[in-house]
């Protein structure tokens, strides 16, 4: 009984946090989108539009919950919950800090892959139950896309599993260190490619631009959710934005060392205020920082790239991502077998990979600077307008 109450309380806390995060992310996304298009974005409701998402949610709640005549009532009603559940359940094993997780699952990453499939079922049911050709097309597209992209996702995750020797997300985080050269992305060239494959296919699974054809507004009248209104429509969007956090958190955990600050070393060091609790909070903040960077990159990609066509989407998956995925799995197997951890080759590779990535980053900053210079526009860094 006690256990049950504890779990319910934890679930409610998680639900509250993820709903608020998803809500705030909608505003953040719109502000970023605005600045990238030389606009400002919503800045009227509350200070700098901070509570715009509450206004949007209240508006959607006030709408009539329309269930059209010809739909299948039960399936139509249940679809949004399935989608939201699929996204929400993936949060269970994600370690937000050294001890901040819901459940230390030994099958962690496998569980994440499995529960993410609820989203496909939700989209399919929503599209089919709507009894509308556009919705059905959207649902079918989404099923084709998400099932296809689960393969490269899984292959990229296999790379990490091979390197960590565990499915447990906590152990994956602990196997990485606090510094960049200890992260899995810079361990070997195959893991570096695996990061991009994982990131791209996670975007496709989350129906984000450039892979948002299931709900392509300009083609499908918004796809599987056309017939939905009010709070059910909102649940689809809540799931989409919550999924941003899940993608960012997964990328951080799998490739970028999670919230690992080198906990064991820090506690032993003679630092002032080496309270384990403080270090735990620092680790949580470190994790949130990394996650928010990836969330920003996903948002940024959305406002950069055009949508791919359905055939291009399938080409990218089956002709590029899957073969490369198999290649990197084989490469990692060989690498793990022939290059033991903490050997000289391993260490040199890590340093070289980190150096190359840093150089790419510096070159990128230079390109941004050059673009700013070419346009001769005034630089305006203040985000509050």
């Amino acid at each position: 009984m006690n256990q049950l109450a504890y779990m319910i309380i934890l679930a409610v806390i998680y639900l509250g946090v993820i709903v608020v995060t998803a809500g705030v992310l909608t505003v953040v996304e719109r502000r970023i989108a605005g600045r990238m298009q030389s606009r400002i974005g919503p800045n009227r409701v509350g200070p700098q539009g901070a509570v715009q998402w509450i206004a949007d949610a209240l508006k959607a709640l006030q709408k009539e919950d329309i269930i059209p005549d010809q739909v299948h009532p039960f399936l139509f009603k249940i679809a949004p919950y399935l989608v939201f559940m699929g996204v929400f359940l993936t949060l269970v094993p994600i370690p937000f800090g050294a001890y901040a997780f819901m459940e230390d699952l030994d099958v962690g990453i496998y569980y994440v892959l499995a529960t993410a499939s609820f989203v496909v079922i939700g989209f399919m049911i929503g599209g089919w139950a709507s009894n509308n050709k556009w919705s059905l097309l959207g649902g079918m597209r989404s099923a084709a896309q998400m099932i296809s992209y689960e393969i490269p996702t899984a292959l990229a995750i296999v790379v990490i599993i091979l390197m960590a020797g565990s499915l447990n997300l906590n152990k994956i985080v602990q196997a990485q260190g606090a510094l960049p050269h200890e992260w899995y992305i810079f361990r070997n060239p195959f893991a570096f490619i695996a990061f991009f494959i994982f990131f791209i296919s996670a975007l496709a699974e989350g129906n984000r631009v450039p892979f948002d054809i299931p709900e392509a507004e300009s083609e499908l009248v918004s796809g599987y959710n056309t017939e939905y209104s009010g709070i059910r429509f909102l649940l689809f969007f809540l799931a989409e934005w919550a999924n941003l956090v899940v993608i960012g958190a997964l990328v951080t955990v799998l490739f970028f060392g999670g919230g690992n600050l080198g906990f064991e070393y820090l506690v032993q060091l003679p630092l002032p205020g080496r309270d384990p609790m403080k270090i735990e909070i620092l680790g949580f903040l470190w994790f949130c920082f990394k996650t928010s960077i990836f969330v920003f990159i996903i948002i940024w990609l959305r406002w950069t790239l055009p949508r791919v066509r359905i055939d291009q989407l399938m080409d990218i998956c089956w002709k590029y991502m899957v073969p490369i995925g198999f290649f990197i799995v084989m490469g990692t197997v060989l690498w793990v077998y022939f290059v033991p951890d903490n050997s000289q080759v391993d260490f040199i590779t890590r340093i070289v990979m980190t150096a190359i990535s840093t150089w790419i980053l510096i070159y990128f900053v230079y390109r941004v600077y050059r673009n700013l210079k070419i346009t001769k526009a005034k630089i305006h860094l203040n985000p509050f307008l």
Partner: protein
Amino acid sequence: MITYFKNIWDTAATVFEGMAITLSYMFQKPITVQYPDRLKEPVPHTLPAGYRGRLALDAELCTACALCQKACPIDVIDMKGMRTEGKKGLTLIYFNIYHGKCMYCNLCVEACPAEDEESHQTALYFKKDFEGVGLKSSDLIEQFIPQEQAKALFKEATDFAEKRAKEKKQAESAPKPDSSLKPEGGA
């Protein structure tokens, strides 16, 4: 095979460059003008010199000459000037503008002879006020002399006119001074 790797390279390079461009736009100043409340200066200050907003009257300057009323082709201006006691020239009794009719042609303002010496502002002028929406049709009729005051002024003016008429009558009925006393004219 070469095309295969070239495609991958092209994708990576173009996405890289595209993201650099969008990020550079994020650091630029937005061109949005936050009309009408979050501006550096109020909107009327930014309007050009010849802007014609609502028609307005400076009642202090007005000489009640009625030139504007005559200039207006569509009877937007309804005004009356009369003489009152102890004042030289005409006094403005009432001055109503029917904004609903006005076509902002500027003819009345051009006709207006009364001008402020310092600012060269004519008595009748166009305000830089562009929000001319009224909720009732009566909002579009502007009375520059309030109705009560106009009534009082009208009474005063009519009284004065009667008084003058009486004086004139008395002057006429009074015996005329002898014409022979007049200084010699050209007769």
